[in-house]
């Protein structure tokens, strides 16, 4: 049975090769070739692989092989063997590509429905009710405490950008508390470069704010 299938397929391939590439005659011959293969029952079925992935692999395999029918060498084996060999590799490629894209998806893994782009529910509530809540409740007075510090701590005014006492810790930190002034806007106001401000903030102001908050028992 297989022998006569193989003879038939080889004949169809030989016929297709005899016509010029892209010619209608070749296309007709190849269409018949594909039909015979797919109806033969000898095409590799994909061994339980995802049907969508298999279909994609089969499609890509045809696209690939039909461009290079001249490369089939009867001395190397039967036509079906040739087709199935490439089909298996194609399925592996398609599976790997799908796996890679799956790896980029991270499931939150919990049941809680929460749209992160909308205003979050009241912070006093806990959507993860089963999680033991050892965290601090929101401190309404966090900003008040910081603002008081900004007004009273003299060292904040003495900490400033080189030659610019007006660009000092009190001013810059104050402008970064919520709702913060944008860096570009602040830079215009203070007549400075935005990256001078961001560097000053990162290198000098942030450590100060951090140690202040730690000293008050926050964070």
């Amino acid at each position: 049975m297989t022998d006569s299938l193989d003879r038939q397929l080889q004949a169809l391939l030989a016929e297709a090769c005899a016509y010029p590439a892209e010619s209608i005659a070749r296309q007709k011959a190849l269409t018949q070739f594909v039909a015979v293969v797919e109806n033969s029952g000898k095409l590799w079925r994909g061994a339980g692989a995802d049907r969508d992935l298999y279909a994609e692999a089969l499609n890509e395999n045809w696209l690939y092989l039909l461009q290079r029918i001249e490369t089939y060498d009867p001395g190397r084996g039967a036509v079906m063997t040739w087709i199935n060999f490439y089909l298996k590799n194609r399925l592996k490629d398609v599976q790997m590509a799908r796996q890679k894209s799956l790896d980029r998806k991270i499931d939150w893994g919990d049941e809680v429905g929460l749209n992160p782009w909308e205003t979050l529910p009241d912070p006093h509530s806990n959507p993860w009710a089963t999680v033991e809540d050892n965290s601090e409740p929101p401190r309404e007075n966090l900003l008040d405490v910081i603002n008081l510090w900004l007004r009273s701590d003299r060292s904040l005014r003495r900490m400033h950008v080189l030659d610019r006492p007006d660009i000092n810790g009190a001013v810059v930190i104050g402008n970064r508390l919520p709702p913060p002034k944008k860096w570009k806007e602040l830079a215009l106001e203070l007549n400075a470069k935005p990256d001078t401000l961001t560097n000053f903030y990162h290198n000098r102001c942030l450590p100060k704010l951090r140690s202040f908050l730690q000293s008050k028992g926050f964070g």
Partner: protein
Amino acid sequence: MRDVAWRSARRHPSREKQGEVFRNLLAVQAVETFLIRMGVKTGRGSDSYDLAAQLSLDVADLEILGVGRLECRPVNPKAVHCDVPMETWNDRLGYVAVAIEETQATLLGFLPEVQAQQVLLDRFEPLTNLFEALVVKENSLSDWLVGNARDRWIDLKQWKPQGNPLAAFCHTPVVERPVEQIVTAINQAQDDEALWSESDRLWQIAPEHPQAGVRRVLDLGLALEGNGIALVVGVLPKEDDGEVAVLLRIAPLQQVYLPQGLTLAGLYPDGNAFARVQARESDNLIQLKFQANLGEKFSVQVMLGDCSITEHFTA
């Protein structure tokens, strides 16, 4: 995962800030989960988890242990661009765009650098490019000796800083002597001091001479609190192959003197210093000279107050 983000977010009194912190930490944790699966070691020492930083900046950095920080920007699934605030433009290995949804997150792509506060998502590169960024960037001095260096290190011969002439980067006075004589003196130098003094002389007269070695400069610019400072690294191959002589030199770009307290240090791979020098009140230059075996690794650290910059080298 989300409860950690939630607990951090709810510490903040402003509702906008809560949302921002929540989304930032979701993005950070999504990337962290992805990287852990790939065998990359991460930590939780980043600004994104720090109350002071959360309060005053929009940051979503993830600590990559021993390497640096990766910024993980949350993206609305319907958006076509990614927001990258100015405060994240420095000190990052790169940027990952992460679509954040109600049930899941998807890593969309990677960029090694950004220069705008909004970047179109289709400018992002494939995620696989991320892995190159997660290694410590090293400068290879043997590559320098054959003319290859990373873009940021400019050939001192071609450097045109504002103001200061090249001569300011040599503190050895120019003396009229034939080139051959200086070359001989270089080859016969008994120690690093003599070697580099003669090399300076040769550099000033004939920087193209094959024995003049290689000198490259890194403009440390604003990184040190607005003090314009340049770091010059010079390399000379030694007679016995397998060793190079290294010069580290720091000079000011706008002022005459270096800021007092500025420190230059050479570090072993474990972080301990093998050499260190500090600028005193009226130093216009500080330098270190040493020798290294080819293949040996070291780092160069420049520090002023809280700011420091470290560059990594292989001899």
